[in-house]
């Protein structure tokens, strides 16, 4: 359950910026290729936020689709979904350009 570490990272990142200010909403970007499960993040976030200004904040999660360049066929912008990133040409030799990260994009203060 690495989402616990992820949730701690989210709370730390916010507090580094806003300190103890009360936060109403947290905007997250979770890539579909990032190996991070949004529902597990929600569960862990509640635990990690307790006793901080982020406690009780709602999570707005934007799941970002995977995109890649294919080294196999040279395609520049391939949509990737499913657990195994594959180009339509059948190659798995991909350079992922989107959907493999997890960001705290912004917070809305209470």
């Amino acid at each position: 359950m690495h989402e616990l570490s992820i949730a701690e990272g989210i709370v730390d990142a916010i507090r580094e910026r806003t300190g103890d200010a009360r936060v109403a909403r947290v905007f997250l970007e979770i890539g579909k290729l990032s190996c991070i499960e949004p529902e597990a993040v929600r569960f862990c976030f509640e635990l990690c936020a307790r006793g901080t200004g982020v406690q009780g904040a709602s999570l707005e999660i934007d799941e970002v689709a995977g995109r890649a360049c294919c080294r196999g066929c040279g395609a520049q912008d391939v949509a990737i979904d499913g657990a195994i990133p594959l180009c339509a040409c059948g190659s798995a030799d991909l350079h992922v350009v989107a959907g493999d990260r997890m960001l705290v994009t912004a917070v809305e203060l209470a």
Partner: protein
Amino acid sequence: MCATCGCGGGPVHADHSREHPHADHAHEHPHRHAGLLAPPAFTPGRIVRLEQDVLAKNDAIALRNRAWLGEREILALNLVSSPGAGKTTLLERTLREVRGELPVAVVEGDQETPLDAERIRAAGCPVLQINTGRGCHLDAAMISDALRALDPPRGALLFIENVGNLVCPAMFDLGEHAKVVVASTPEGADKPLKYPHMFRAAKLMLLNKIDLAPHVAFDEALCISRARQVNPALEVLSISAARGDGLDRWYAWLHGAIAAIRHHDAGTPKDRALT
């Protein structure tokens, strides 16, 4: 406080007459303020942009670990597998084989117990046990502390035995030279497809317990093709850590990797291409 970005204390101003550096901001706008001493004051309802990668802190520590290891020409390998695939048995045998040739040290990660560290110590090797408790993986900060505690000599080989788990350790760069995934024949040929992130993050797959393959109806060629389906560049060695099959090739791989870091600075940045 700057009305544009929310930084600086005091009343909101929008005249852009004062100056401050914007190095830690995700945006740029043409003004600067002086003396950013107080934490930012924020007004209710305002949106504060962070654009912060949640794994950035771990990755930054991993980068420092990699540089530390590189300066000392230490080859660090992050051994990952499901529980019971044979990582510790492989290590015990490997240590006995190579420690006469070069200094070796081990970091053991488990949720609980010092049992694995005791096995490694019995094999005559400096070892540090990390018990992660509720944690399911090692992270770069744990390894940073472990490196300073173990302080392996220049040119050493460092094995980091991660927590037995094919999911979480794939995400956390420790600063290692490479991840080596140990898969074992009783687990079945479909492990690479079930846990693609880990097999994608690894440089080498050791297919362990190959001596058991006939008894557990294991299809070696199918497993390897599935592993390469998720990671075309994956190197594969079939071994039996218990019986010794294929271990000469594993030792040769280790020597090749050691020679490579002695010829290149090991501070190679993490390849994020497929992780």
